[in-house]
C-alpha cells in the first residue's frame, strides 16, 4: 500500500523549549484510518500542524502525497488536507453556515456560480442544508463541527485530520461526528488521521500510533495496542473499558484467549461463558 504521508526523521521544538520531536519517523498509508494517541503535551497536535505546514519544521522532511512540505508547496498541500480542530467556535469564520463553507472556496478563488453548487452539495452531505442561514451562535457544538466538515468536503481533500475534533462534544455528538467522517471517508476513499485521547475513538481505527513525549512508542492494530494495558497506564492513558474488564476477570482467574475485545464481542463472549457453565 502506498504511503500518502511520510514523516522522515523530523526534529522540532517551539521557541525557548526543549526538543519535542527528536528524529521522529512515521508513515500513514493511503486509505487507512490512523489514530494518534498520547497524553496532553505529547506532541500529537504539533505533528498534525507540521504535516499541514502550520508550524515550520527545523529538521527532517515531511512528504504529503509526493509533495515536500515547504513554503512553495504549502497551498497545494493544504488542498490535499482538511483539518477539523478541537474548538468548534474557533474555526467558524463565516457569518452564517453557508458563508463559512464558502470560506475555503473563496480562498481558492472558485467561480461564484460553481461555489454555490459546491456549498449546497457539501451542506446536504452533512445534513446541514436546512441550517444554511443560521449564525454560529444559534448552533450546537456538534452542528458547528458538521459545518466544519462540510467546509472540508467542499474542497475535496484526500486526507482529513481530526485534531481532537470530538473532545468538546457530548458522547452522542461525538459518535455522530465520527460516523459522519466514516461515511465520508468510505464514499470518497479518504485517509483519516484522528488525533485523540478518547480511547474508544481510537479503538475504531485501522491502526494506532502511540506517542509519548514526542516519541513513537508503539504502532499496531487497536486490538494489540489495547491489550497492553500496562503500557497504556505507564504513559498515563486509560485503557478502554473492555480491556479493564478483561484484566479484572483475569485477576479472578477467568482467562480469555484473545487479548482485546470491543464491547459487542466481549458481551458475546461473556454470554457464551455463562451459558457454558
Amino acid at each position, binding site marked *: 500500500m502506498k504511503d500518502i504521508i511520510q514523516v522522515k526523521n523530523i526534529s522540532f521544538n517551539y521557541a525557548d523549549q526543549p526538543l519535542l520531536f527528536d528524529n521522529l519517523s512515521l508513515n500513514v498509508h493511503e486509505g487507512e484510518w490512523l489514530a494518534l494517541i498520547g497524553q496532553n503535551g505529547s506532541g500529537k497536535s504539533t505533528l498534525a*500542524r507540521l504535516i*499541514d505546514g*502550520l508550524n515550520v519544521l527545523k529538521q527532517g522532511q515531511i512528504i504529503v502525497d509526493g509533495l515536500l512540505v515547504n513554503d512553495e508547496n504549502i*497551498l497545494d498541500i*493544504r*488542498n490535499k*488536507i482538511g*483539518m477539523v*480542530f478541537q*474548538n468548534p*467556535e*474557533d*474555526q*467558524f*469564520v*463565516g*457569518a*452564517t453556515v*453557508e*458563508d463559512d463553507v*464558502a*470560506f*475555503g*472556496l*473563496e*480562498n*481558492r*478563488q*472558485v*467561480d*461564484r456560480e460553481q*461555489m*454555490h453548487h459546491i*456549498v449546497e452539495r457539501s451542506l446536504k452531505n452533512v445534513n446541514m442544508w436546512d441550517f444554511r442561514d443560521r*449564525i*454560529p*451562535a444559534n448552533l450546537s457544538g456538534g452542528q458547528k463541527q458538521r459545518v466544519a466538515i462540510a*467546509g472540508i468536503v467542499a*474542497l475535496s481533500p484526500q486526507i482529513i485530520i481530526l485534531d481532537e475534533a470530538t473532545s468538546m462534544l457530548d458522547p452522542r455528538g461525538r459518535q455522530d461526528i465520527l460516523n459522519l467522517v466514516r461515511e465520508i471517508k468510505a464514499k470518497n476513499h479518504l485517509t483519516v488521521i484522528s488525533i485523540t485521547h478518547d480511547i474508544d475513538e481510537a479503538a475504531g481505527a485501522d491502526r494506532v500510533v502511540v506517542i509519548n513525549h514526542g516519541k513513537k512508542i508503539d504502532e499496531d492494530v487497536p486490538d494489540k495496542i489495547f491489550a497492553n494495558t500496562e503500557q497504556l497506564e505507564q504513559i498515563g492513558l486509560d485503557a478502554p473499558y473492555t480491556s479493564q474488564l478483561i484484566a479484572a476477570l483475569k485477576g479472578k482467574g477467568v482467562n480469555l484467549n484473545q487479548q482485546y475485545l470491543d464491547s459487542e464481542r466481549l458481551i458475546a463472549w461473556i454470554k457464551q461463558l455463562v451459558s457454558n457453565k
Partner: protein
Amino acid sequence: MNNFLFGRYLPGNSWVHQMSPQSKLMLSFYFVIVIFFANNLASYAALAALIAIVILLSGVSILFFLKGIRPLIWLIIFTVALQILFSAGGTVLWKWGPFSVTNLSLINGGFIFIRFLLIIMISTVLTLTTTPLAIADGVQTVLKPLKKVKFPVDTLALMLSIALRFVPTLMDEMETILNAQRSRGVDFGSGSLKHRVQAAVPLLVPLFTGAINHAENLSTAMEARGFSDSEHRSKYRIYRWQLKDTVSWLVFLLVGGLVLYLRK
C-alpha cells in the same frame, strides 16, 4: 447589546429589503446630509413625508421605530433642552438667571427634535432591513474606490465580518464570566463609580484572554483552510445594483432638490 446588533434585523421581502446594501448605506448618508440643509417647516415636512414613505415601503411596524428611539431619548431631551434654554434672539418669553426661553429658541428646539427623529428613523430602516453581514459587504463595495490608493478594503471587510461574527460568542463568554464572578460575591451593579470600575477588571481580563485565544486559533484554522491574503479571493455573496436602487435614488435626489428649493 446583543439585541442592538443582531436582534434588530427583521427578515422580509419588501422594497427596502430588496435594495442592495451599498445603495441603502449611501442613501442613509445622503439623507443625513440633506437633513442639515433643512431649516424651515416646509423643508422638514418634505423630509418627513419621504421617511414616512420609506417606512411604509419597508413593511416594518412603526412600533419597532419607536423602540429605536427609546435608548436615545435622554440624549434627545438634553440636546433639545440646551437648545431651548441657551439660544439667543427673538422675543424673550421667560428668563431666569442665565436661562432664557425665546420664541426662536422654541422653534429651533422643535427643529432639532425633528432632525434627531429623522436621523434615527433612517438609520433604523437601514438596520432593520439589512443584515450586519450585508452591511459589511455594503461597506466593502462603497469603499472599493480606495483600492486605487492601496487601501486594504477587502481585509477591512473581512475583519468587519469576523468581528460581527464573534460578537455573540464574546457576549456569551462575558455572561459566563459575569455569573462566575457573581457566584463568588462580586457585586457589579452598585457602589461608587470607582468601585464599579474596579469590579470590571476581573471581568475584562478573562474576556480579553479568551478573545486573544479565539483570535489565535481562528487564524490557524483560516490558514489551514487555504487563506493566504484577503485581496485575492472570490466572493460567495454579491449584491447587485437593481432598478429599485435607481428609482429610490432618483426619488431621494428629487426630495433633496426640493429641500434646497424650500429652505429659507
